[in-house]
């Protein structure tokens, strides 16, 4: 066994941002939400994550503004601590150790220094109680709460099930109790209290909202029923003045009820996934809805969606995890009918590609088209997707779509749609990766017993737009069902698994070269070795990992292990095998040519790992340790059974990250991007003149994000900056926008200047001329600092580093 001292399995973002209701700060500039083990601070205007409040070691279960100081925020976690943060600076102020996992927590104006937490009962872990915690008043960073007093027992751990009424005068708690009067589903799902009146609103599973009044008398309570939702009401929220009640559910429609005039209501439909939480900013100007597809929508005055913060959608992952070779983004199916492109480095969704191109109806029980398979070719210029719909067991609707990457629009454009490419479900799909030839080949295998090869063919008719994909070859093998297929690295061999038999074909002649078989057990995963190991073909069965030598056509070696997932690193010979053993998954990284694994890690996570991918690094790591060398060129990501995206990091890498985050956190305190700051004053004036022209607004936010040079310019303290004249030209150049961006009117004026830099800027421009959601994503990475010469950049960086160590020292003291 190889030792793996400094390699750690870590969560790598993509965590849920819709787990608990987000919090909007008093000035409506920030939105705070629990995300995995951290609290993320987003800007409500730019959708950018400004910083993360890290420190909890368990899942964060709640975020609340401190009632007595609206610049501070409490967060609770399953690790049993409450932490108080200064969210503008991202500083941990205080940690309060409770000792029990906190499932949700509440605070109110009336109870100073008291926090109400929901923790499990000491006697029975499945029952919960509401406990009042008196926060100790000491200046220490770390305090332990001793004064605990139980308030209510037998409460629901769901935070929506408890609400504090009228500034904490009473507590409303709902249980799962079936409250049956008219029959049907009357189970309570959520509760909200009116901020001024004695009125409690409850949501029910039958879609009704009930407003309870007069409940302070023992029996004389009364209620009225509001009914619009057809399924469960999942969230309720009163506006701060109590004039409106907001409700949402699976219909993904935000309903606004007028308090006391409930027949009048407003709707904001088509918000995306089912609404899970609704919050309102303290001044009532912003509404914010969390959705089941890991999305937060910010709505201005109940009419306009002003920002969408989209996390990684990990509902029902049907496709493999893939890397987009161009954008280096993680690709998997996300929103229904979409493929999502997710930047792993920046933990941000780049964009969604609409595959199905049909309206999705948010209602349970409907059979709709879903993306089930996708594959990229090696260069990233072709994308193949499969969508299917099960109407009934017999009727399967299948579409194979091929998408070409369009350099102009910087996105994938539908090239060919093949309806019913196979008679049954497609089991696997892969592109040929030819190094020399121009033709691209796609092979799909299906449960109907055939595998088909598709080729890009020249148009038969001259009036056709361009080449489209046609079926080139169909074959079967003894009526067996092909399970997976794989091309060798040079594209000269195709291996197709027919249950227990591995067949090897020549794609150029479509000749069956040889069959390899190693009974017993059907081969479930297949992988060709790369680079120096390209003579090897690896396969997995339920109990064995097999390696064939293709030169001798014989079995080279075999090990007995239950490999659930075998992935090959595209940049090296390395392969990673996830083996399931007694409830947890082990990882082995090996080279097919070497008998000993390079790295092994027992129990990386509990449960099975069925999805994993090697992601190439942007810059190579220079690790000399033997055990972590395999992580130098690419990083391994995998999805656990609990749908957590995990990765492996080395210690060195972590240290580097920590250092950089410290630097950023101290200087990056403002909410807006630097660009916003520059133009902010100007815009305010504009808005005074022409009250918030929405089109202008959209245009402004759509402008390309800041480049590194701007960041340097703005974040470096003035006294260490070079002279203004020196910086000016760089800055102006960085502001330039290419001609290809049709939306920008500025571009025309600056066309001439642009042409000089065109070659250098080409890459950046391509980014910026992509579709809008992607635009936001294309924000400054280290690489696009075209205006700076290397020497200048180095100088600037050195200057900044110097300054920050000094500043950090000051802060620490």
């Amino acid at each position, binding site marked *: 066994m190889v030792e793996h001292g400094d390699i750690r399995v870590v969560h790598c973002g993509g965590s849920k941002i819709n787990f608990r209701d987000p919090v909007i700060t008093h000035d409506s500039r920030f939105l705070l939400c629990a995300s995995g083990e951290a609290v993320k601070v987003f800007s409500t205007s730019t959708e950018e994550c400004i910083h993360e409040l890290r420190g909890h070691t368990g899942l964060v279960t709640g975020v609340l503004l401190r009632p007595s100081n609206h610049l501070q925020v409490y967060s609770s976690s399953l690790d049993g601590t409450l932490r108080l943060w200064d969210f503008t600076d991202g500083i941990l102020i205080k940690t309060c150790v409770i000792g029990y996992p906190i499932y949700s927590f509440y605070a109110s104006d009336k109870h100073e220094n008291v926090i109400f937490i929901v923790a499990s009962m000491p006697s029975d872990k499945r029952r919960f109680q509401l406990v009042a915690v008196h926060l100790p008043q000491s200046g220490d960073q770390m305090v332990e709460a001793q004064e605990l007093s139980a308030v209510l027992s037998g409460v629901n751990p769901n935070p929506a099930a408890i609400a504090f009424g009228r500034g904490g005068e009473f507590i409303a708690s709902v249980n799962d109790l079936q409250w049956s009067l008219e029959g049907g589903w009357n189970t309570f799902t959520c509760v909200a209290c009116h901020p001024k009146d004695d*009125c409690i609103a409850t949501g029910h599973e039958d879609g009704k909202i009930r407003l309870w009044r007069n409940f302070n008398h023992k029996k004389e309570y009364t209620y*009225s*029923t509001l009914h619009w939702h057809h399924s469960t009401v999942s969230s309720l929220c009163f506006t701060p003045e109590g004039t409106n009640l907001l409700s949402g559910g699976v219909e993904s429609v935000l309903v606004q009820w007028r308090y006391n005039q409930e027949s009048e209501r407003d709707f904001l439909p088509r918000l995306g996934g089912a609404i899970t939480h609704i919050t309102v900013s303290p001044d009532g100007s912003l509404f914010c809805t969390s959705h089941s597809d890991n999305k937060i929508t910010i709505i201005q005055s109940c009419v306009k969606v002003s920002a969408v913060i989209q996390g990684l959608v990990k509902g029902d992952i049907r496709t493999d995890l893939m890397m987009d070779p161009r954008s280096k983004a993680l690709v998997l199916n996300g929103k229904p009918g979409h493929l999502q492109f997710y930047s792993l480095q920046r933990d941000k969704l780049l964009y969604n590609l609409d595959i199905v191109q049909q309206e999705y109806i948010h209602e349970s029980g409907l059979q709709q088209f879903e993306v089930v398979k996708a594959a990229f070719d090696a260069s990233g210029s072709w994308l193949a997707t499969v969508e299917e719909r099960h109407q009934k067991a017999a009727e399967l609707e299948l579409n194979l779509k091929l998408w070409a990457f369009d350099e102009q629009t910087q996105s994938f454009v539908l090239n060919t749609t093949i309806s019913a490419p196979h008679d049954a479900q497609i089991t696997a799909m892969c592109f040929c990766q030819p190094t020399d030839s121009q033709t691209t080949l796609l092979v799909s295998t299906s449960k109907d017993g055939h595998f088909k090869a598709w080729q890009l063919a020249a148009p038969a008719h001259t009036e056709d737009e361009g080449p489209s994909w046609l079926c080139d070859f169909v074959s079967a093998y003894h009526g067996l069902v092909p399970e997976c297929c794989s091309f060798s690295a040079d594209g000269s061999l195709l291996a197709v698994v027919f249950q227990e038999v591995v067949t090897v074909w020549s794609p150029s002649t479509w000749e069956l070269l040889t069959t390899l078989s190693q009974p017993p057990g059907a081969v479930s995963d297949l992988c060709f070795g790369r680079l120096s190991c390209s003579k090897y073909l690896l396969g997995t069965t339920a109990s064995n990992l097999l390696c064939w030598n293709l030169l001798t056509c014989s079995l080279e070696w075999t090990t007995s292990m239950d490999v659930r997932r075998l992935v090959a690193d595209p940049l090296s010979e390395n392969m990673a095998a996830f083996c399931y053993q007694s409830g947890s998954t082990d990882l082995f990284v090996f080279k097919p040519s070497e008998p000993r694994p390079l790295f092994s890690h027992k129990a990386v996570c509990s449960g099975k790992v069925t999805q994993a991918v090697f992601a190439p690094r942007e810059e190579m790591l220079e690790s000399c340790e033997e055990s972590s060398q395999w992580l130098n060129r690419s990083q391994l990501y995998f999805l656990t059974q609990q749908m957590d995206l995990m990765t492996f990091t080395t210690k060195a890498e972590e240290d580097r990250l920590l250092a950089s985050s410290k630097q950023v956190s101290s200087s990056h305190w403002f909410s807006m991007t630097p660009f916003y700051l520059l133009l902010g004053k100007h815009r305010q004036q504009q808005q005074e003149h022409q009250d918030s022209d929405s089109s202008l607004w959209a245009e402004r936010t759509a402008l390309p994000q800041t480049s590194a040079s701007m960041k340097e310019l703005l974040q470096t303290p003035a006294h260490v900056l070079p002279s203004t004249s020196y910086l000016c030209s760089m800055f102006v150049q960085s502001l330039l926008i290419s001609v290809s961006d049709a939306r920008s009117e500025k571009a025309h004026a600056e066309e001439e200047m642009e042409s000089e830099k065109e070659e250098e800027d080409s890459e950046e421009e391509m980014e910026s001329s992509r579709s809008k959601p992607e635009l936001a994503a294309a924000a400054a990475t280290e690489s696009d600092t075209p205006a700076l010469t290397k020497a200048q950049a180095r100088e600037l960086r050195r200057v900044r580093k110097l300054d920050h160590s000094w500043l950090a020292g000051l802060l620490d003291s």
Partner: protein
Amino acid sequence: MGEFKVHRVRFFDYMPSAIRTMAFNSQTERLAVARADGAVEIFNFNDNFFQEKVIPGQDGRATEALCWVGHRLFSAGLNGEITEYDLENLRPQYTVDAYGGPIWTISSNSQGTQLAVGCEDGTVKIFAILEERIQFQRNLNRHKGRIISLCWHPSSAQIAAGMTDMIKIFDAETGHATRRLLVDRAMGASKNKEVVVWSVGYLSDHTIISGDSAGKVQIWNGLTGTLVRTYLVTKWDVLSLVINASQDESSVIAGTSEGTVIQFQFISSTVDQHDKEWVRTRTFRNHSHDVSALAHTDTAVVSGGMDTQLVVRPLLDKVEKNTQESALRKIAFPHRSLVGCAKKAGLLLFQFPDRLELWKLGESEGHVCLMYPYFVCRFLQGEDHICCSALSACGGWLAYSTVSSVRLYRIQYNNTISINKVSKLPKELRSVHQLCFSSDSSKLFASSCQSSVIVVAVSQQECRYLHTLKHKTGEWKARMHLLCASDDGKWLATANTDCEIHIYNLHKMKLHCMVPVYNSCPTTIAIHPVTNNLISVHADQQIFEFSLVQKEYTQWSRRLQAQGLLSLWLERDTPITHITFNPKNPDHIILHDTYMFCIIDQSLPFPELNAVLWNQMTLKSLPVSQRIGQSHAFKICKSFQHLMCVSLLEDLSLVVVERPLLDIMSQLPAPVRQKKFAT
């Protein structure tokens, strides 16, 4: 339990009439309900909502409004007359013409001294209520347009009157209009469309609440004449509005033409604040059609309308939860039997308000139908509606009665049917409440208005008055609503609405004994043909067996009372309306209500109080030993629903007369609006 050949009769197309208006008397806990055919029904809310009185209607008498004054009941209708009812003899006592055209509304002041009626010609007329009659007092100032609704202020100093487009407040002393509240016309609708204030309420704090045809419920300050709040409740009309005047006036309910009832409550917004406001709270959706009549009892909302059902919806904040009291009740059928059955001849007599229908039951052998049931004849009645009818067991005699007269027919079957009206009836038979033939069809018993039973001998030749059975000389007013003669012709049992049951010996023609008075009204009585025990079932679902010979409750009855009836039985909400006996097995008593029929086996032990009743299919699947252990006295069959009658013929075939509620619903006119999903 036994197996029966069943005649499943579904050709009784009884159609209840729409509920027009209702009035609740909170002192006596009686609800008066007026139907569109002019009939008035009195329900006793103290006694399980039992329908104790039915005043038959009359063609052309359209009751528009009802009003209780103490124990007296007044009604007014579009024929322009005010009627007071004789609640003992179930007939109008007198009518007074108001001379103001059709009357839309009637209302009495809180002292019960004055009656105000609103007329078509725009006048509000005040009548003084005297001992035995009412007397016109004066007119309030006349205005253009009809008076649709009226409400007295509790102090009797003011009257609020709802008209088209406005509400006026009159000073009751001077007769002048003091305030005029203009009601907005419907939004969106054409400006010319008048808005009708269908209903108005006047609270003691001078708040006026109105419901109008634009679908608004409006709250006004009557002192200043200003509008306080408007609730747009429906897109159609708010037809009725009632205040719980007997309590603290903190709740108002409004019925709309889309079938909803909406409650408004006067509550404070927070605990420590004392100023209260009206808040729309609950919505009840129990009707498919117009809710034109509403009553607000202390604990429940009572509503009725076009869909003919009376719905009693308890307010859960006022009653104990999950008890019989908190259950929703729907009263769809009358609490008396409308079906007569000639057991020997296989004839069925259906009683409609305006006609009788006689049907012959079919015959079949196995699955082969030998004879289809066929329609024999129809007896059409004129202006007055039928209040009771009877068919003799042999099928040879038929009698029916209206408020004013009795008719007797002789029916003979010799291949063809001949029906002869018996022309000469004794003059004692004039106005009766209940008719009953003796089992040998030789005598006709009629409960008369003088709280007596008239015995008339009927035979081929003549119809002769025999005797009048009276149990007591002196003043006695309660009306007999049930009559039952024993099979051997010796006994006659009568039950009256004072819950008394009397037994007469027909041989001696005098009172035999009186059954101890139980505090709930008997819904049906029957005398056992073999043992001559009297079985009585009461409105609170209790069953008693009284031995006529020993003049005491039988052992079985005592045991039943000692153990108590099982809760499933007590929780039923429709009364038992008919009892028959199985001639083959004297232990079996067959009873039915609307939703089930039950065979009580007197030889078996009683079930546990909260026993689960197994159905026959489950019982059959059990092993024999367990099945015997499970067997108990109550065998309930629910395979027939909405029963009007269950009777056992002489050939041991069971007649089940069903009237499915769906059939009644399908005959109603189309509702104003049906809630459709996603609209």
